[in-house]
């Protein structure tokens, strides 16, 4: 007698999803959706935008499932699709915000690691979300996803140099935000 809900391995689910079984697709979606929304949130300005990216990403996952050959983790494959979905979304809706010329002000704020350690993922997410679209994209791809500037250049459609300068500018803005948050906290405490 089986009282427990049947559990499937991801591979089993993927095989069933390949036949277009809706129930299996739903189970697979529910297994990965919140993690993938966590990824999309970093590329979006708000949750609605992130959910659009998630939706487009999952439609692609199910439509291109046959391209997944089982090499490497399935989750990693889905995540890459989400990242591409986010880039595509930006291309579509944030094309006008191309900040190509980044002048280095020479201003380099200093933050200590302890300050960031006290901040939650939600705080950091708030910082990243307020970054200009291109900076946000490059920072996410380089610092968190681990792509090289060359790869980012190809993915986003900018030069390697632009990717480097935008990353540097994104870091400066983020550091400023961390410092401001710190000051606010001390201000509130004192």
């Amino acid at each position, binding site marked *: 007698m089986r009282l427990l809900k049947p559990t499937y391995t991801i591979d089993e689910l993927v095989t069933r999803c390949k036949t277009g079984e809706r129930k299996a*697709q739903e189970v697979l979606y529910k297994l990965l959706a919140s993690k993938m*929304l966590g990824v999309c949130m*970093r590329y979006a300005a708000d949750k609605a935008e992130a959910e659009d990216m998630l*939706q487009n990403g999952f439609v692609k996952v199910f439509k291109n499932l046959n391209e997944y050959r089982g090499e490497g983790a399935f989750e990693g494959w889905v995540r890459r699709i989400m990242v591409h979905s986010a880039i595509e979304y930006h291309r579509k809706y944030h094309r006008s915000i191309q900040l190509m010329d980044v002048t280095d002000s020479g201003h380099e704020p200093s*933050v*200590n*690691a302890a300050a960031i350690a006290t901040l939650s993922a939600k705080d*950091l997410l708030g910082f990243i979300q307020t970054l200009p679209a291109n900076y946000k994209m490059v920072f996410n791809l380089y*610092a968190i996803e681990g792509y090289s500037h060359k790869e980012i250049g190809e993915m986003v459609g900018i030069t390697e140099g632009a990717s480097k300068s935008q990353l540097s500018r994104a870091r400066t803005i983020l550091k400023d935000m961390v410092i401001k948050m710190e000051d606010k906290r001390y201000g509130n405490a004192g």
Partner: protein
Amino acid sequence: MEMQDKEFDGLFTSKFDGFEIEPSPMVWQNIAAELDGKKAKRAIVPYLSIAASVIVLLSVSIWFFNRSTEKPDQHLVKILKGIKTGKQQPVIKDNGSIEPVEKIENEGGLKLAAVKTGSDKRTDQTVIAQAAGQPQQQETPILTPEPINQKPEPLLAVLPAEKPITLQAAVPGNDVPLTTGSLAEQSAAPDNKPQEALAATEPGKVQVKKRAHGLGGFINTIVAAVDKREDKLIEFTDNDGDDGSRVTAVNLGIFKIKKQ
């Protein structure tokens, strides 16, 4: 202690490790709908609406062209008939009655007629000598440009003296002295004036209400009949002093231009 960029990035990476947010249930519904092919249906809608707009635009323009080409022709025929009978251009008086036009000869040897349209809403003070704008080809007796050897002088029209009224010739730009050159230009002007002339020549049928002036005004009237929006599909200048053919506003829904 200042940290390296790598360390800074690493702190973010570790913070986001295992970061999850629950999506709203709508997302799965949308994905399922999209996988069912509802997106394909959605994609047809823009094409349908484009097709519909093209049909609407075409039918409106066909209707519009039929109207704007037929009417002026009929008008022209009537005008020419009127002229052949040898009738003089009448003058519309304040009380709505019509009198034969007065010929006025000025020192420059130019003859022109003054038409007072006192009942017209806009011209309580301003009297416009419409005849000055009449094309030569109509053989109207009222305007015969003759060689001017003297210096050109502004034209003045004489009126029945009710109250002192400033007279202005309907030459483009009221202050411009009338020269043979400008008359020649007017003679070559598009056939928008005959429509006005007709309205004035029909005996006993003096229109007191505001009429469409020139081709521009005529088009405005038609467009207004079809397009009930505040900003019409297309608007032309609508006054006697102008040539009536300048576009002042265009409204294609998303694309709007309006000249004040």
